[in-house]
Each structure stands twice: as C-alpha cells, then as structure tokens.
C-alpha cells in the first residue's frame, strides 16, 4: 500500500486477512505498526524475508484481544428493528406492484414444483421405514452368470432352495423369511368369489418384517400347510369382520384355514399383499420343484434378518459357498447370490423381477435435479430484479448506514424482506401444488403405482424450512450488493454510483435462465418428435384398424365363431401376443447342417395372421393348422443369419426350435417386431399349438360406436364372467412408448415453468431498463430518433445474451437427448436445424416481444410527460 513504491508492499493476502479479522478500533494502529516494521525489515533483510516476517506477525495477532467481536444477534432492539424491516418490506412491495407480482409469481411457480419434489422425496424415503428391524434386514439377489461368463443385471428374486440352504447353513443370521409370489387367482367363500394377490410365505415372515397382527399368533400363523393369513381389509371385504380365525376359504378347490389377520401393509411398503399362504403348502402341491430347484429363482424371494453383531463379509462368503455347491450340482443355472440392504431396495438400483414396482434411483435424482434447476431460476429472478431496483433504495440504505446501521443489519434487513416474499409465495405455491399434483401423479407408472403425495405434518414443516431457505438464497446476492454500498457515494449522488459489478451478475443470471428455458424447450421438441416418430414408425406391416381382443382364457375358435358374424369385421386372426409393443419371446434355433445355434425371436400365430396384418410374403405361403407337420415362417434376417441364400432356397429347411423340428414354409420381409429400441434380428412366426391369447380383428366401419357395441355383445354371448378387453393396435403401440410420452410431459411441464419464470424476469428487467432510461429515450426522440432505433437500443444488450444462451443451450440439450432419452434407441429422428432451433427461436421470440413491448411503450410516450418535471 506504500505509495512510494508499489513493489515494496506487504503481502496482500496477509493485510487483507488482518483487515478481515482485526477489530476496527485497532486496525489502523496495528496495520500501521506492521507496515512500518515491514519497511524497515525490507531494508535490513530484503523484501522476501520482510514479507514472511509480516505474515508471521499478522498470524501472531490472531488473539482474542485483537479479533473482532462477532455479534450476530446481539442487537438490543431486536424486535423493534425486525418490525421496522417488515414494515419497510411491505411498503416496498405495495409501492412496486408489478415487480412484487413478478417476484411472487415466479417464486410461487417454482416453489410449487419444489413442494412436489419435497413431498415426493419424503414419501419415497419413508419406504420400508416402519420395519422394526429395518437396519438388519437384507435381501438375497441372484445374478445369473451367462455361458460366456458375462453377469446379468441382478435379479431381486432368488430360489427358495437358496433361502433354505442359508437358513440351515449360514451362521450370524437370526431368521430367513422367504416367499413365493404365486398366490393369486380366486378365493371362494361359501357363496362369493374374490380375486386376490399374495405370497406363499415362510413361517418367519412376521418375525423378520413388522406387519402387526389384528388376530392370531404371528409365530405360528404360517407354520401349518394350508394356513392362510388375511389382511384386515381383505377380511372385511370377504366376511365384513376381522373375527374370522378358523374359517376356511377355497383356492383351486382346496380348503385353506384362516389362522391370522394382519393390518394392511402400509402404502410405503415395497411388499404388498392381500393374503399370505403358508409356504409349507407348496411341498404338498404338485409343483414342489419350486422348493427344491436351484433354477426356480424367478418369482421367489428371500430376506435375511442378520444378528446384531453381524459380519457381513463372512455371511456373504458363506452364501458364496452355497452358490458354488449348487452351481456345480445344477445343469440349468449358474448364478451368484448377493445380499443387499433393505434400505437400498426402495428407491433402488435397477433389478429384474422386483416384488412390486420400485422407484429407480435415477428417476428420483432426476426429479430432484430438475426441481433444483427451476428453483434456482426463480431465485435468479428475484436477485436480478432486486439488484436492478437497488439503486432506487440506495438512499434508504445510505441513511440507515449514516445513522449507524452495521453491515450485518443491512444484510438482515434484505434477507428479512426476501423471506417475507418467499413466505407470501408459499401460500400461492401451495394452491399451485394442489393443482399440479394430479398431473404429476399420472406422469408415469412408477409414480402412480408407488406414491400418493399425501401431506403430513413433517412435510408441512419441510415446506416452511424450505421457504425460509429459498428466501435466504434469493435474498443473498442482492443483500450483499446493497450491504456494500458506500454511504458517501450514495450521498454524492446516485448517478455517479458504479454498479457495474451488479450488471455483470445480472447478465450472467439472465443468461443462465435462458439457457435453462431454451434447453427445456429444445428437449421437449426433440422428445415430442421422437415420440411421433415412434408412433408413426413404418413397422413393415399394417396396424391400422386392427382391434386386438384379449381371449382371457376362452377358446379361439369359439370367439372367432362369435365375431365372424359381424359384417364390419373383415378379417380375424389369432396370436400369442402383439409384436411391436415391447413383448418378445425367444429360444435357440438350430439347423442341422449349420454349426451354431442362434437366438430367434418368435410369435405364435394362426393361419390367417400373415394375411390379416398384410405381411409381405417373399416366398412360400402362410402356415396352416396341420399339427402333423410343424411349420414356421421366417424373416430375411433369419436367412442371413443361417446363410440360407434366397427365400426360395430356404423353403423346406428343417429348424430345431422350441423343442420341435419345424419346416420353413414361408419367408416374409423384415418387419419391426420389437420397438424403436431394437434392431431387426432373426425372427419366426410359428404355429399356435393352442397358445393363442389374442384375436386380431380387421375392422372396416363407418360407425365405430355401433361396431364396438356389436363386438361387445358378441363377447358377452360367449363369456359373461369377464369384460371385453379390446384395444386398437395403434393404442397398444402408444402405450408401449408411455415412457417417452411421460418424459415429454415432464420436460413440457418444466419448460413451461422455466420459460414463464424467465419471461417474467425479463419483463421485469425490460420495465426497469425502460424506466431508468426514460429521460434518455425521450431526449433522443425529441432529437429525431425513430421508434425502431429506440427499440433496438434497448434490446441490443439482451439480444447478445440470448445468442450466447442459445449457443450454450443447443449443444447441451442435443447431448442430453442423445445420452439419456435416445441412449438405447436403434432408430431415432434425424436432428436438423428445425428440431434444435425451433425451441430456441420460440423462447427468443417471446423474449424479444416482451422487451420490445416495453421499449415501444417507452418510445411512444409523449416526450413532454417525462421531460416536464425538470
């Protein structure tokens, strides 16, 4: 700081540190002394050593007698000041109605999204918390080792055999609860039939999990075969009472005795059931291989209750040993067993064969990140407008400072103000939240199946905490900017003040907002186009006017004979399931003369299918009903894979497929039996052999309503127990891409919020700029400037920001689209200028309209109005 020679100065960091911690009463004196010493030392020891000595001295001053007294809340007239702050805040809010409205509306919109996220996240994290032993419960997962040594995605399920082995052999485990997910179908009382779902659970079920009993003994309820545990609501539905112990119910003509009634599993349990049957029942049923087969790991589950002083590594090691022994014994399955904490199940990693629907971790974090983005955007708005308007309040701050307000007090004042604004926004946000809640619940099935978004006391508490936090965040930057105003420069005149720092912050904040808005807008466009693309994808056959009716166990020929009488139905065919809707079926196929077996996808169909859905036949003809001669129709990819040459050459080849030797009787053009996520692999249509589940009706009708009524009538004449389940093929395909449409909806919702917030903010800025430069504009106008030139004068700065934002947003959203939504897709849209540009252009146009509306207003105003006053 020496003015004599700028090079000989004490280390800047040390002197700044001193200024920071030193009590202001002593700072001048001490800093002076140190500097004097420093100059002397420079002469004696040289600059380097002097600097070091200076730093040491500064550090030596770090002692209680020197350090500032920190007095955060030591104001004697605390309440009075806060009263004053609130009063001033309200006066300010009501004086600047437009700005207050923009701030409150923007905050409320984003807070509604955030409230949603809060309720959602608290609900998700409350899952499985009600189990008393939740910290000691582990689930056993199977990981299948494929023949080539590759590991599968972990399965949530494992075999009952593994559960039994662990129960018998592994030390350090108190209980093993296992269950088989096969207790579904109908339960009959004396005169009623109820459709239920539940598990065959082992007797330890109630000792591992906490499902309190209403009636019965938890320790013995599931011991005896054919015992049955009902949930409270099931018991009331069936018997109108929970006092039902000892009563019997028929399942598949076998009587089960009710031994207990439990409370319904809470909403936040990942295990849900109406009834539990004793697992010991399985031993006396015919399919007892479920209990003893290492390979039946597809719908059974094992949960371990480990002891207090567990050694997980040891447990895992013993379980690995069991897997090793069983793999050696089994021919059909090579698998690893792995244990997983209960708390990692919901929300959790992707597992196959989950017991119920599990919220994937990625979805949860995506939700949180998106909510945070929206919230920050709204906070930026608040900061922006407050900084922009701070000049108008500079005098107030100046006076406060001169009268003796400390920096901390000014800071507290502005934080109080922003917290007030956010509290007001909370009220509005709460109503908005109630409006968008149903929309959100229907967003995708993960959400609708697992959450209710009910409000609890703790969520209200979180709301409040969050609001205060938002108030603090939003108020932080403007409060800091205003705190640093120097009273002297305020008093000299506002015009001379430099708030260049503020302007830069503002530009950056607006820039970030527009990057977000454009990014969301572009993502929505891309996702929408991709969705449309998926729906209109040329599948290689015709889906138009095809109505798929579920047979629901009825015989195909009976259903066909009922439908064939309807004149509007042009064609009837049958299939096991519908292609292009995400379902696939596959097996290894082998041709004797060729070396390797190949995975071939297939669908069972009847003889009319190929013609009904207008598949292009290249050679041969459709299959027929002749069960003596097993037949199949293959696609071009099949020929290529097996190197069968031309379609004609392939006819007559014998393929070993699905345990039969089948003859190729026809070749069809490649078509998309999968979704846009899959490319075309070898495929075959094979004979139905009684496995038909759907009938496909080709309909030509001018009056669809009456045709549908006829179809429903025909259905009711053959099956009065089940309702008609029918949907058009195009609807089925639409349902297949539900995931895509739900991300589209999410991005859509968020982009509306983000764009509205940023446009609101921009409106505020435009109003402010036009107001602040009103005199300049009118003088220019008087001197002859055109309206256009004035508008472009005001818009110029913003346009630069928009261009920079677009330059950031476009590549980022392109990258995001490619790496998230389109990540696993084989077929995607061509992304060109319009796909990327339209979102950005839309946002920029709206923004420019907003600015120019204000600019035009200012430019058109009568000059005398604004110039008269001076």
């Amino acid at each position, binding site marked *: *700081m*020496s*003015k*004599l020679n700028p090079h000989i100065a004490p280390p800047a960091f040390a002197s700044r540190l001193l200024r920071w911690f030193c009590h202001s009463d*002593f700072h*001048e*004196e*001490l*800093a*002076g*002394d*140190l*500097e*004097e*010493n420093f*100059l002397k030392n420079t002469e004696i020891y040289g600059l380097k050593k002097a600097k070091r000595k200076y730093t*040491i*001295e500064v550090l*030596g*001053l*770090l*002692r209680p*007698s*020197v350090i500032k007294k920190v007095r955060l809340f030591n104001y004697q007239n605390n309440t009075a000041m806060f009263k004053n702050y609130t009063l001033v805040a309200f006066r300010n809010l009501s004086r600047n109605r437009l700005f207050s409205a923009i701030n409150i509306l923007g905050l409320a919109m984003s807070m509604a999204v955030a409230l949603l996220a809060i309720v959602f996240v608290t609900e998700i994290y409350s899952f499985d918390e009600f189990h008393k032993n939740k910290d000691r419960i582990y689930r056993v997962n199977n990981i299948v080792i494929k023949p080539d040594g590759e590991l599968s995605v972990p399965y949530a399920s494992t075999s009952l055999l593994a559960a039994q082995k662990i129960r018998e052999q592994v030390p350090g485990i108190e209980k093993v609860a296992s269950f088989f997910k096969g207790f579904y179908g109908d339960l009959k009382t004396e005169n009623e039939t109820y459709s239920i779902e539940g598990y065959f659970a082992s007797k330890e079920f109630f000792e591992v999990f906490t499902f309190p009993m209403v009636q019965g003994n938890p320790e013995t309820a599931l011991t005896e075969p054919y015992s049955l545990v009902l949930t409270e609501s099931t018991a009331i539905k069936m018997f109108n009472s929970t006092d039902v112990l000892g009563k019997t119910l028929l399942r598949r003509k076998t009587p089960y005795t009710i031994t207990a009634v439990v409370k319904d599993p809470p909403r936040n349990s990942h295990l849900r059931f109406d009834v539990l049957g004793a697992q010991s029942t399985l031993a006396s049923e015919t399919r007892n291989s479920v209990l003893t087969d290492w390979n039946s790991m597809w719908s059974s589950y094992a949960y371990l209750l480990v002891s207090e002083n567990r050694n997980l590594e040891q447990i895992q090691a013993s379980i690995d040993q069991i897997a090793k022994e069983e793999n050696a014994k089994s021919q059909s399955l090579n698998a690893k067993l792995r244990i997983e904490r209960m708390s990692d199940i919901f929300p959790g990693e992707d597992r196959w064969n989950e017991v119920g629907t599990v919220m994937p971790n990625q979805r949860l974090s995506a939700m949180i990140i998106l909510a945070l983005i929206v919230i920050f955007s709204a906070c930026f708005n608040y900061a922006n407008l407050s900084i922009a308007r701070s000049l108008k309040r500079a005098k107030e701050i100046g006076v406060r400072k001169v009268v003796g307000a400390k920096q901390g007090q000014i800071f507290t004042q502005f934080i109080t103000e922003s917290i007030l604004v956010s509290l007001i926004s909370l009220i509005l946000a709460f109503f908005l939240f109630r409006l968008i809640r149903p929309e959100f619940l229907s967003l995708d099935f993960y959400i609708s199946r697992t959450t209710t978004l009910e409000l609890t006391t703790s969520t209200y508490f979180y709301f409040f905490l969050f609001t205060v936090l938002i108030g603090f965040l939003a108020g932080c930057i403007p409060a800091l900017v205003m705190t640093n105003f120097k009273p002297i420069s305020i008093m000299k005149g506002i015009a001379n003040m430099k708030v260049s720092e503020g302007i830069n912050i503002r530009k950056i904040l607006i820039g970030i907002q527009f990057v977000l808005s454009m990014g969301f807008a572009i993502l929505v466009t891309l996702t929408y186009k991709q969705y449309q693309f998926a729906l209109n994808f040329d599948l290689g056959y015709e889906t138009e006017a095809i109505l798929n009716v579920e047979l629901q166990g009825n015989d195909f020929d009976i259903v066909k004979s009922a439908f064939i009488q309807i004149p509007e139905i042009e064609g009837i065919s049958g299939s096991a399931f519908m292609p292009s809707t995400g379902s696939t079926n596959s097996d290894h196929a082998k041709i004797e003369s060729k070396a390797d077996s190949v995975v071939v996808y297939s669908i069972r169909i009847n003889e009319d299918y190929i013609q009904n859905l207008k598949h292009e036949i290249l050679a041969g003809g459709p299959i027929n009903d002749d069960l003596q001669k097993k037949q199949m129709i293959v696609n071009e990819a099949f020929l290529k894979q097996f190197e069968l040459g031309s379609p004609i050459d392939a006819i007559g080849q014998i393929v070993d497929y699905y345990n039969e030797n089948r003859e190729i009787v026809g070749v069809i053009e490649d078509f998309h039996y999968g979704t846009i996520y899959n490319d075309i692999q070898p495929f075959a249509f094979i004979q139905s052999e009684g496995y038909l589940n759907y009938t496909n009706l080709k309909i030509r009708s001018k009056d669809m309503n009456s045709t549908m009524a006829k179809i429903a009538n025909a259905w009711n004449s053959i099956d009065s127990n089940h309702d008609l389940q029918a949907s058009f093929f195009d609807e089925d395909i639409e349902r297949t891409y539900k995931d895509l449409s739900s991300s589209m909806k999410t991005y859509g919702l968020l982009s509306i919020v983000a764009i509205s917030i940023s446009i609101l903010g921009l409106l505020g800025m435009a109003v402010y700029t036009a107001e602040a430069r009103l005199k300049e504009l009118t003088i220019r106008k008087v001197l002859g400037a055109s309206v256009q030139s004035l508008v472009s004068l005001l818009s110029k700065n913003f346009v630069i920001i928009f261009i920079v934002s677009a330059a950031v947003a476009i590549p980022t959203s392109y990258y995001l689209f490619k790496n998230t939504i389109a990540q696993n897709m084989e077929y995607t849209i061509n992304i060109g200028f319009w796909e990327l540009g339209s979102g950005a252009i839309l946002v920029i146009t709206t923004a420019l309209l907003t600015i120019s509306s204000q600019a035009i207003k200012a430019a058109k105003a009568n000059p005398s109005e604004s110039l008269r006053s001076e």
Partner: protein
Amino acid sequence: MKGTNLGEFEEIALLTILVLKDDAYGVSIKREINEQGKRNISRGALHTALSRLEEKGLLTSKQGQGNEDRGGRPKRYYEVSNKGLAALQEAKEVRDQLWSQVPAFRLQ
C-alpha cells in the same frame, strides 16, 4: 489488592514507555523491549499487554498523525498515567525492600 499488581511483562512495558518519553508507540516500544530486554516479543503479545494496561487505567493513549512510512496510517502514542506511575513505584518498593533483606553472601 488484585488488579493493581503488575505482571513482569507489564512492568517492562510501562518502564519502556517511560523511557521513550514522547515517542512511545507500537513499533518503538517493541523495538526498545527487544533490544534492552534481549527478547523477541510479537506485536500481538504487546497489543494484548497494552490494551490490558489501558483497561486497568495504568496507561492512556492518543492517536497521532498519519505517516507516509506507514501507508498513511496514524500512530497511537502511549503515556503512563498517574495510577500507572504509582503502580510502578509500588512494585519498585517491594523489590527494593526484598533486595535489601537478601543476605549479601547469597549473591556471590
């Protein structure tokens, strides 16, 4: 009475200020103590002692003029108050009294 008793360092500081007469401020006091007492004290330690003495009323201080050498910052000059002089006097008397009673041979 507790409080008027001087610590060793406090006594040195007060005496140094007396020695320096009108030129007793941070840097000079520190230099003087370092040279005469053959000890190296930090500015921080000195500050603590001086502010405690001032609190006890044994010192008074006043702000001087700014100086180019100090980056334009003013010096704070210290002066021993009457109470300070009395305290020094008392300390000296106690010591003298004790010294006079120490048998001469013990000192050889």
